[in-house]
């Protein structure tokens, strides 16, 4: 019964539209970040001469490091912007 409960209750529950908008925005941000990483790391790691359809060893290692470094930059810039925002600087 427990796993069915969700659907029975759902009709009587109210949906907090503001929370939903925030959750949707978070989903949007994660998906946007993913798409940007796919694009940047493709440019950095995959040569435009397509000799084979598989990823070779060098490309695979490059992708792993590229994703890691992109996350580092994303975090570092995010921290910077939050500090500025908190300090009341114009953005």
């Amino acid at each position, binding site marked *: 019964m427990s796993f069915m409960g969700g*659907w029975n209750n759902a009709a009587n529950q109210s949906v907090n539209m503001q929370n*939903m908008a925030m*959750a949707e925005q978070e*989903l949007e941000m994660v998906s946007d970040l993913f798409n940007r990483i*796919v694009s940047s790391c*493709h440019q950095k790691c995959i040569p435009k001469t*397509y000799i084979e*359809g598989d990823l070779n060893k060098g490309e695979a290692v490059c992708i792993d490091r590229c994703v890691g470094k992109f996350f580092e930059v994303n*975090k570092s810039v995010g921290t910077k912007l939050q500090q500025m925002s908190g300090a009341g600087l114009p953005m």
Partner: protein
Amino acid sequence: MDFSQFNDAERNHLQRVMEQKQMKDFLKLYSGLVERCFNDCVNDFTSKTLSSKEASRKTLTLDFLEGCIQKCADKFLKHSERVGQRFAEANAEMMGGAK
């Protein structure tokens, strides 16, 4: 994202939102792949149809081993998949660290 903070109605709502998002992301992957592989592989406009160097004529028979377009598409899908794996790991780590 932490879903435990939401009630069932909200989870149902987000479920539908995520399904729509997945469809949109798939279409974006599709159109991005076409654009990228076209730009990288097709540079000769002296002929009307794709040359064998640009694309294998046997595309419809699943023979994706020849032709720039096919290799480019294959490689891009594998690239996206690998980025997805690393992304999920890094995201999980970030979420863990934020708690």
